[in-house]
């Protein structure tokens, strides 16, 4: 309640106000007000739609299989050997075998045949017919386009680009298969094993896209070089050298660097990357400069010592069986020690994940703003209805 002196002020204010001549207001206020209302409603509708779209996008990203997301990682044209090989564990078996070129193949610890995509580094467990079992073998061709396997004497070769397979049934010549390897060129599959009489046997199967040239019988002892002059042999014991054979049958040693392997190492060749370069799976005992299983690239012994090179291509290779690589994917050496021979697909996946996270954060912020706008609109609707 005002006090008596305030009444004087109140009266004076009314006197001032009463003297005011009101100016006219615009006659389109209603139309402008309704237009503003429609704009606000359209904004709310757009915000709600944006929220729904954002939430849909977030749900899609979050619920997507990680492998599907990494499929969007940068692709290496022509393919590359991955810088790291891991055992993926229990991958879902894939029925579609037309996967394209592979860089690596092996039997996982769970016994599943696994290939690594050459261009994207993705791991695939394959639902192969008559998949290799305990004594089975797996061999990826040098060009990464063919995958051969054996099981109880039966040999098959899969064309990874079209998913078709060639079957070589068990016969008197190969009752069981002990080794399976591709000759350079990826046209010929070399096998050794035992025949029905129990004798050692071996042969060449035309499993590639074309017929290969003639091979010397010594080729069956390992992996022949592109010229056929040398055969790289698998060692069964730890030793100071990698073993080779001339086509005429003379054995050759390629001494391993003693500073790397003072106690020697076990060398299993995976293929020839160039005429005189061998990619090998090396297992070195404790105390070596590079312990355990790793991949190396070294010059064959038919070259002068002065030309020899020895490169560690990959460390910490997991204990998987029947490891084979598409050796044609190893780049030609440029003579520098800094040349990178493999590709870090994991870094691609990490950067893709970071992009995914950035998208998620962006969409999350947008969704939060949209939700706030939507809540504001609902609150106002509720107030209006009261």
């Amino acid at each position, binding site marked *: *309640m*005002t*006090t*008596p*002196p*305030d009444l*004087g*002020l*109140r009266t*004076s*204010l*009314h*006197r*001032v*106000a*009463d*003297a*005011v*001549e*009101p*100016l006219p*207001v*615009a006659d389109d*206020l*209603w139309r*402008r*007000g*309704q237009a*503003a*209302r429609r704009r*606000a409603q359209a904004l709310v509708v757009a915000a709600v739609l944006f929220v729904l779209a954002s939430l849909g996008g977030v749900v899609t990203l979050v619920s997507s299989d990680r492998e599907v997301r990494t499929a969007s990682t940068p692709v290496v044209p022509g393919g590359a050997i991955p810088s790291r090989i891991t055992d993926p564990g229990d991958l879902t078996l894939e029925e579609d075998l037309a996967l394209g070129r592979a860089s690596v193949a092996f039997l996982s610890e769970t016994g599943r045949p696994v290939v690594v995509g050459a261009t994207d580094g993705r791991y695939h467990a394959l639902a192969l017919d008559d998949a290799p079992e305990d004594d089975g073998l797996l061999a990826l061709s040098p060009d990464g386009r063919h995958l051969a396997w054996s099981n109880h004497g039966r040999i098959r070769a899969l064309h990874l680009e079209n998913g078709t397979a060639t079957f070589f049934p068990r016969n008197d010549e190969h009752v069981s298969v002990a080794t399976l390897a591709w000759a350079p060129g990826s046209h010929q599959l070399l096998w050794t094993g035992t025949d029905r009489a129990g004798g050692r046997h071996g042969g060449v199967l035309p499993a590639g896209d074309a017929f290969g040239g003639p091979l010397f019988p010594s080729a069956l002892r390992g992996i022949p070089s592109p010229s056929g002059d040398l055969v790289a042999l698998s060692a069964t014991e730890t030793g100071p050298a990698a073993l080779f054979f001339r086509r005429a049958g003379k054995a050759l040693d390629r001494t391993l660097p003693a500073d790397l392997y003072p106690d020697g190492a076990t060398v299993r060749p995976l293929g020839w990357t160039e005429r005189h370069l061998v990619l090998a799976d090396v297992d070195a005992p404790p105390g070596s400069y590079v312990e355990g299983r790793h991949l190396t690239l070294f010059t064959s012994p038919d070259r002068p010592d002065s030309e020899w090179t020895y490169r560690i291509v990959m460390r910490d290779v997991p204990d998987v069986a029947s490891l084979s690589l598409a050796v044609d994917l190893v780049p030609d050496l440029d003579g520098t020690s800094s040349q990178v021979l493999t590709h870090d697909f994991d870094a691609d996946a990490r950067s893709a994940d970071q992009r995914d996270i950035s998208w998620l954060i962006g969409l999350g912020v947008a969704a939060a703003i949209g939700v706030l706008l939507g809540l504001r609109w609902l609150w*106002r609707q509720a*107030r*209006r209805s009261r």
Partner: protein
Amino acid sequence: MITDDEAGFAEFVAARQTALSRTAYLLTGDHHLAQDLVQAALLQAAKHWRRIHTSPEAYVRRAMYHQNISWWRRRRFAESALGGHDDAAPAVDTDLRLTLDQALARLTPKQRTVLVLRFYEDLTEVETARTLGLSTSTVKSTTRHALGRLRTLAPELAELIGADA
């Protein structure tokens, strides 16, 4: 053809425009600013008519109070200051209405608004505080300071304002 809502709005504007304009003038101290203030508040009312059509005047007045203070906040840094803060206004005009008008013009919009609500709209301190979204103590202190400044700016109004108001 106009809708019932539009007709209701037009009827409200026709009936209350004068009263709203007077309040707006007291709030702004300027005819054209008062016109803009009324139009801005009516535009808001037209936009939200379906929600406020049962009691539009309270909505429009509240919109005017808040809009006026909002405009002042935006303008105060752009405009040059007026003379000395507490210098007495030259009482050349002997008309009391003009003297009060000039003195009000020297108050801040917040002070003017509180005075208008308390002594023109005749709201209590609690109602004024609720309308402006202020605390009651703020309304009390603002009223005290505003009346004190009026006494300083226009000593001849002391009798009107009262020594203890």
